[in-house]
């Protein structure tokens, strides 16, 4: 068998060239793929939006929060939805008060949807049992690192209730708005 490894520099050069050429050739599809794969990193959310949610009359002034869907324009990659539920808020009004407290229904712990505790009296997240008072404060022991996220709420002269809808990072102690 005429087996002989390429001796010396010529063999080394051939190896380097082979690896370089092959590597470059494979790098092109990988590079194009990764380039496109990273596209989501440059996309930004809708940010803070003032969205009309309901009428003041629809929130009884009994201090018990009521849940309302937040309906707004939503863009999902290529699709544009004119009006779609994009989340939910808990709105609460004390007796005789015209002011409305708005809490995002998104749990600050891991992003599940916070619900009323089965017995009432407080909020409870069905995923990991975080509990919050009606004003959004943590009821220990709860895995949530922070209180429920309060949203700025506006009540118009005509009684229209609108919230500054905003998403916040889950799982961290600070309330950091998502861009």
């Amino acid at each position, binding site marked *: *068998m*005429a*087996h*002989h*490894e*390429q001796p010396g520099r010529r*063999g080394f050069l*051939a*190896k380097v*060239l*082979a*690896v*370089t*050429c*092959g590597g*470059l*050739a*494979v790098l*092109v*599809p*990988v590079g*194009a*793929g*990764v*380039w*496109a*794969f*990273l*596209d989501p990193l*440059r996309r930004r959310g809708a940010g803070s939006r003032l969205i009309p949610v309901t009428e003041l009359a629809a929130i009884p002034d009994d201090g018990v929060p009521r849940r309302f869907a937040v309906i707004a324009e939503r*863009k999902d*990659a*290529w*699709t*544009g*939805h*004119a009006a779609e539920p994009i989340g939910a808020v808990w709105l609460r009004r004390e007796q005789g008060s015209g002011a409305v407290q708005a809490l995002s229904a998104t749990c600050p712990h891991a992003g599940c949807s916070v619900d009323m505790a089965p017995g009432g009296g407080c909020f409870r997240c069905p995923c990991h049992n975080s509990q919050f008072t009606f004003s959004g404060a943590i009821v220990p022991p709860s895995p949530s690192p922070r209180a429920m996220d309060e949203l700025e709420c506006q009540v118009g002269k005509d009684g229209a209730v609108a919230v500054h809808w905003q998403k916040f990072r889950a799982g961290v102690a600070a309330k950091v708005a998502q861009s």
Partner: protein
Amino acid sequence: MSSSSGRSTGKGPLGRLADFFDDRTGYRALVHEALFERVPGGARWRYVWGSTLVFAFLTQVITGLFLWANYAPSAQTAWESVYFIQHQMTGGWLLRGIHHVMAQMMVVLLALHLLQVVIDGAYRAPREVNFWLGLVLMMLVLGMALTGYLLPWDQKGYWATIVATNLAGIVPFVGPSLQQLVVGGPDYGHHTLTRFFALHAGFLPATLVLLLVLHLALFRKHGLHAKQPLRKPDAMFWPDQVLKDAVAMLAVMAVVLGVILVPAVRTMLAGGQVEWGDLGAELGAPADPSESYAAARPEWYFLFLFQFLKVFEGWGATGEFLGAIVVPGLIMGVMFLMPIIGRWNLGHRFNVAFTLGIVAGAGLLTALALNEDYCSLWIDKASLADAATLHAETGGDPGKIAAALGGDPAKIATMRRKLAKLEAYRNSAAFLAASRQAEVEAARAVQLAGRPERIPPTGALDLVRRDPQTRGPRLFGLLEGKDCASCHAHVDPQAAGAADALAGTSAANLHGFGTAAWVRGLLDPKRVAGPEYFGNTAHKDGDMVQYVRDEMADPEKWKPAEIEAVAVALAAEAGLADASATPQQIEQGRALIASDERCGSCHNFRDNGTGLGTAPDLTGWGGREWLAGIIANPAHERFYGDRNDRMPAFEKLLSAEQIGLLADWLRGDWYRPSSTRPSP
């Protein structure tokens, strides 16, 4: 290459790590096995084709997986997600371009690999099984090409797939069931896409990988089939042949990138701005079962099959069965028998001649197909003028043609050839026109999908169908001169050839309807009874024409500024007033229109009290609602009442949505992108 533990002394951490893994996997032996294959007679360029094919497949797997990460197979999302990849995602055009061009490259490389194997006689014992595996691999690759063509769900892929699946349907006994299984039901839709996608990205490549592993294993078992005579001493696969393979792979990739990027370089050199989304793979308009698509063609590497079917034209279903199934089946059968046939020296020559013949035949058929489609580009139309005249005069009747040529056999034969050429010219011109139209519609679909509000959840086809710019001319019958266009012209009066276009009409020219310019023409004593307005209608001697000619021609009665004010006010009514129109001018015009001493003597306008029935109501004149109303029923008392001249009530022929589209198109009311990119 066996290693033992405790050998690590004197080695760096990397060496020790390598030893650790080698001890537990024996990878060094595997690598050695893979790389140190003997290449009899030394490395040669003619051995690179198999490796480039593996590389091409690897490229398809890589780019395909990344495309998969962004593709959504359904009738409402396939085109849309591909649009998003191509036009919105960074580098999406490059990713899709590589996948698209490499797919074509793979077909070329397959042909080269097959040719090399047959010519070198590499299918002979003991390599028969590997040759058969190769043929199956080839069919799998072609199957992936066929299934991939549909996935963007654009007009091109959709119609090509309809043809391909209908051909599958003519297989005896199982055909219809086979077709229904592949299509995923009786109609083309979601399941056609999910099934084609599963075939394209799952079943076919998985089978291919399996067979490719066997193919490569058998290749290594038998060793490389060296081309005799051996020119050089034996060499090792690594690095000699690997280097040649790697250079060939890089060359293949360079060609692919070249195909994608050359148009961009050209644009740059011409000083233009490159639209990256237009590079690489094209994306047609969304698949629309309701729109005929005269530009339907398979991908170029299937053109020969497409053309081959034409050989059996006139044989009906039998011909298609022969052309699409029997003959290709026989050819594949012969190819499978090649290792047996090739046992004899003459047999090998037959195999080579057969393969070359198939390649040449496919080449010839492809050339014929291209010639049929593009011949109008090089046929001299002027030389066919006499044939065109004769054809128009005789209606193509052979008896009449013979009579017109005085029965001279030589002349008849020449004319017959010319008539055939004329037909070829016309077919080609129609195909090219359809292709251009397809490009325009594709560009418009992309433009619409790029609106800030994006694509509605109902999909891009819905968007395209509601687009006045592209649907308006069709509903109007503009190209064919039917429907609205059978009476109305829609031609810029300043354009070349406008006079000819206007001469054959029997109703007003609706180009620019609703604008002040259109009204100025109407109120021009010299034009009102011309073909642009009432000249070819029953109203040519009517009250309006008389009024414009008698009253409005008299500057004592109608000052030019007043006529202008009326034109501007009517355009404002239509919502199409020029930017230069002032509120005072519009107010003045409205007062003149309402006045019972001016227009208001016949026309109702807002609350001027004239009432309906004497002349068209000018309230909201030229607006969407007004236009839709007159299209729906021109004989309504709000419009022409019983003086309506021949125009049908289109509410009986068109849907309210279609009438609305026509109104929008006539008013020029459609989406225009704010970017500087010219509209198609």
